[in-house]
């Protein structure tokens, strides 16, 4: 097992020149290439505002072009080995994808509204199935429209099969009371990674969930304890309200309000606690990924993810969403700061592969409000 040793200090200035790290006992060292990000928060704000205003004027139709515009800007700001990435998708493709997926959306919507209540749970199964389908479609579309040095990246395979696989893993997660979540996360990521690539290079993934189990179990136990505490507080207040008699009404109102707050706080705390698992997962995803001779490394720690999430949450809450471009910028910078690409990029002579056919726009992801992220943040 070769390990990446990347011991250079971070190189904020670009273009980053690959350097050879000194060899350390027994480990194979490869050139470390830092990902550069040159996006400006002012530019992100301009694109973001433009998208909002034009979407309003066009009653939402522009949003597909707007989304494309944002992706194009952000993708073009990432640099690797001195060359920027490029997003080649178009708004028209997204719009067509949405139009194609809309019968499904309408069908589900109508079914949910007008079926007798008894049948409503039946609708949840297709929706749960369609979420991973939409994620895969979105990832496939987006990867197939990212190029670097003129070579297209790609993801192949059937979204519907992936949906089935993901549904199976979800089932396993549930019946194992969450114990199998790391195994499932690694397996579903591997499913996609093994079908991804760039040019003639196929990615392969041999990540192991064993590295995640300890972090997972600890954070899961803490999360359960947090929710139990929230439930306990709510329960105690309800009992107090019931026992208060005459003045009980006001107490009951206060109790239900406090319960809502308790669960909100619990949700945020759990999200923060789970940051440590998310960081471990990111690191394992990158550790297990290879692209020909190229290796990857993620340097994000649990604290890094926690700070990112907490900061983003506070930014959005206290500006009522107006800080969204700042949040986007933070995510992009996070990705650039914590992803290292190991290997000699110039000697990795990628060859263009045939263009993927039929990878249409995303469509379904709009139904679920999914915003897939390529990368880390």
């Amino acid at each position, binding site marked *: 097992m070769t390990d990446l040793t990347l011991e250079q200090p971070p190189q904020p200035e670009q273009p980053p020149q690959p350097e050879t790290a000194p060899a350390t006992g027994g480990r194979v060292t490869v050139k470390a290439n830092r990902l550069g990000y040159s996006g400006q928060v002012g530019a992100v704000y301009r694109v973001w505002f*433009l998208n909002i*205003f034009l979407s309003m004027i066009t009653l939402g139709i522009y949003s597909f072009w707007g989304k494309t*515009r944002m992706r194009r800007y952000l993708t073009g700001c990432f640099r690797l080995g001195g060359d920027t990435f490029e997003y080649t998708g178009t708004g028209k493709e997204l719009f067509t994808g949405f139009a194609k997926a809309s019968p499904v959306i309408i069908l589900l919507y109508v079914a949910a509204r*007008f079926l007798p209540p008894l049948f409503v749970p039946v609708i949840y199964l297709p929706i749960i199935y369609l979420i991973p389908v939409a994620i895969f479609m979105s990832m496939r579309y987006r990867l197939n429209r990212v190029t670097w040095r*003129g070579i297209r990246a790609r993801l192949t395979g059937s979204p519907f099969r992936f949906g089935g696989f993901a549904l199976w893993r979800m089932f396993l997660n549930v019946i194992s009371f969450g114990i199998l979540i790391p195994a499932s996360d690694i397996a579903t990521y591997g499913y996609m990674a093994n079908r991804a690539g760039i040019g003639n290079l196929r990615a392969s993934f041999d990540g192991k969930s064993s590295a995640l189990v300890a972090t997972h179990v600890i954070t899961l136990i803490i999360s359960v304890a947090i929710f139990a505490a929230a439930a306990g507080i709510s329960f105690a207040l309800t009992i107090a309200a019931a026992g208060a008699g005459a003045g009980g*009404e006001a107490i009951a109102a206060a109790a239900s309000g406090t319960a809502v707050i308790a669960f909100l706080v619990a949700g945020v705390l759990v999200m923060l606690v789970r940051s440590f698992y998310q960081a471990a997962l990111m690191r394992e995803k990158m550790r297990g990924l290879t692209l020909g001779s190229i290796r990857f490394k993620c340097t994000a720690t649990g604290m890094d993810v926690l700070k990112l999430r907490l900061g983003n949450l506070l930014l959005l809450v206290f500006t009522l969403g107006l800080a969204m471009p700042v949040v986007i910028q933070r995510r992009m910078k996070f990705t650039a700061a914590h992803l290292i690409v190991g290997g000699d990029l110039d000697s990795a002579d990628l*060859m263009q592969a045939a263009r993927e056919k039929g990878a249409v726009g995303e469509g379904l992801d709009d139904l679920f409000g999914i915003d897939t992220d390529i990368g880390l943040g």
Partner: protein
Amino acid sequence: MALQARYFDGMRSRPYTVALAVSETSMRLTPDDGSAAVIWKFEDIVILDKYDSDHPARLSVRHTPDARLMIESAAAWKAVAPYLQTAHDHSPRLSGAWGTLVLYAVLAVMVVGLAVYYVPRYAANLASLVPDSAARSLGERVIAANFDNPVCVDEKGSAAFAKMLSRIGTGLEKPLRYTPMVVKDEMTNAVAAPGDYVVVLKGLIDDVKSPEEMAGVVAHELGHVHYNHPLRGMMRYLGFSFLVSMMVGDSTVLDAAGTLSALSFGREDEAAADDFAIAALTRAGLDGRRFAEFFERHGGFSIEVKTPDAKNKNAPEAGGHKDKPKNKDSARAEKVMEYFSSHPASSDRAAKIRAAAKPAPAGAAPLLTPQEWQDLQKICSKTQPMDAWLAAQEGQKP
């Protein structure tokens, strides 16, 4: 002067440093490693990104769409750009300048303003397109969401209620299909819901001084049913929410519909229902002045229309009022508020009704006998759960 750029041939990832030589109609890209030069005609060139200080210009060419020429220096871009007049410009065209944004912002506000004004008007007209079954299921959702209390089904009381409805019915120009119900709820109110449901709350029966007074309020609700106001109001409300949700990208529109606020009507609707009620009462030979008395008795028609959301409370909470000791006036004021929160009153409404109302013709049969009125007041001595009652209605649609 040697202009340099970075070139990718679209076949392999290896970068070439090329020297650019510009002629009248084309430019020659000569790799520095001695491989063969490439000629790009300006008219075939596609501009993907223009140069800016942070990012290189990115050019491609029609016959080799995967090839990329990255112009990374301002000098090279300055030299090449004037020749690109005939090239296909696919660079992001909409200006993100702050001035343009302000223009779009103003336009967006105007469009939203117009939409807020017009969409409710036109959405309401779509109400006639909604199939009966859909309207009924919507009505049931609304009723179930607002009243958990059981439905009053005492036989004698129901018979008296039916007699009242049939008497009002004799005053209608054409028969009206609707589903009446009395709900065991303390609020003084009556509601017309989509799907032609007319919901009378028990609080109203307790509050009125005579069956004629109640008949007036019920006839008013039938007016709403006649004009399809509930569905129109709902569509107006949904039309706007739909618009908002489309722009915001949210799909939880109907969740908000389960509130009484969606059932509040405009003043024109209320006036139309009042006129309908008075006409019906007159034709049925009932004393329309009693209907006016209902309003007058609740006094103070300067009551501001309370926003429906503020009072949108569930029945159980409303039922909790009895726990609080309060003087009669404030209790009465609250009841008035209950009614007018969903029935906007204008100061001249009572006067209008009073002016239009006619006394019952001499010798007209009374609406209900004292015994029947007593029965109706006891209609809640036997009840059925709301769910069961609604389910039973499924079988026997009017």
